[in-house]
Structure formats: structure tokens, C-alpha cells
């Protein structure tokens, strides 16, 4: 079992650009959540997808959007990047009968 996989592992973008991050959930999991972890901080919840719909959303602007595909994989899109968007972006998955979330290794986004 490959667990939760994220791509790419590192990314450098210029302010104002757009970025897409990808996540494949652990086998058997159907719910995907995204978190932003700024340097020296705890992860902050962005949103959660289940059955291809956004089910919950944290306190993030509309520049942050997502998608879930029929195979349960997910994308996180960020438009009009700001320097403050530089962070580690973590994807977590779980199944409906699971009470714990399994995290991927994250994508390190640097905005210059």
C-alpha cells in the first residue's frame, strides 16, 4: 500500500501565478482533506472533499479551490499566488469508517 501520495514534492512559483497540487489517497479511502502548514506553525484546515463535493471549508479565501475525481484523487488549486502562500501543503485521507486521517509527505510551495 503506497499510502497517501502527493505531487510534486517541491515547487517554486512567482507571485501572481497559479499552482495545482495533486493528491492520491490511501487505498480504500474516499475522503480527502487539504491543510496548509506555514513554517513553525501547526497545519491549518483548508477544505475537505467527499463524493466529489466540498463538504467543509476553513478560513481561506476563494483563491483556494479544489476538486475531487471519481477515483477519489484530489487537486488543490491556488490562484494569484502571494508570498504568504509559501508553505507545506498536506493532503490527508480517510475512509468513512476510519476515525484517523493519514497524511502524505506534503508539497513544499515557495512563492518568490
Amino acid at each position, binding site marked *: 500500500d503506497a499510502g497517501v501520495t502527493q505531487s510534486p514534492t517541491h515547487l517554486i512559483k512567482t507571485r501572481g501565478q497559479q499552482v495545482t497540487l495533486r493528491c492520491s489517497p490511501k487505498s480504500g479511502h474516499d475522503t480527502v482533506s487539504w491543510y496548509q502548514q506555514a513554517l*513553525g*506553525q*501547526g497545519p491549518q484546515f483548508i477544505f475537505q472533499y*467527499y463524493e466529489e463535493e466540498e463538504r*467543509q471549508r476553513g478560513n481561506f479565501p476563494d483563491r483556494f479551490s479544489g476538486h475531487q475525481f471519481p477515483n477519489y484523487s484530489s487537486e488543490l488549486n491556488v490562484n494569484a499566488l502571494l508570498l504568504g502562500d509559501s508553505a507545506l501543503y498536506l493532503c490527508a485521507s480517510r*475512509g*468513512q469508517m476510519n476515525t484517523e*486521517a493519514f*497524511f502524505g509527505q*506534503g508539497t513544499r510551495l515557495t512563492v518568490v
Partner: protein
Amino acid sequence: AQSVTQLDSQVPVFEEAPVELRCNYSSSVSVYLFWYVQYPNQGLQLLLKYLSGSTLVESINGFEAEFNKSQTSFHLRKPSVHISDTAEYFCAVSEGADYGGATNKLIFGTGTLLAVQP
């Protein structure tokens, strides 16, 4: 609104000494509680969780945490630490989901760096 407080940003400790990492939470409803560990340049790994039942929960690598409802705490302890325990530890809380019956979003504390010295 839920929140998690980890009062200690860093805890230095000598190898084989005991350690306690503190976590307090606030919530108006019943919650699930978790401790995650993050090694450098890696994602989060679940260390242990409290859902219901016995208030003392244990991990396979010697850590334990006790849920104290009256003090709204979930402190993490280990009687004897190793160099390999050096990592960032995050306490998290989650309410029950409003759909599907599974846990909802996680609210994390700011983390505690456990620095084990030889």
C-alpha cells in the same frame, strides 16, 4: 469554536529521562483527540488517539496520553525518551462529522519540538 493550546514550543530533555508534552483544548461538544508526530521534511504520522472509553491511551513506541475532561487536557508522556524521539509533536482535536458519521476536520495546536540530547 474549537481551539488547541500547546503551551511549550520546545522541550529539551536528556536521553532516558521522562517527558510530558502539554495539550489543552476548548470545545463545546464532545471531541476526538489526537497526537501526531512530524519528523524533519516529512508529513504527519498518527501517534495515538482518544475516541471514547478508557481515558488512558498508549502507542506502540512507549508514548501514552490521558484524556482529562474536567481539565480539558490531553497531555502526552513517555517515561524514558530516546534520541530517535526528537521531532515536532502536534496535538489535534476533531468533532464528530455532520455527515457520514466519521470524524471531521482537525484543529491543530502550534506544535512542540521535543529535543532529546545525549
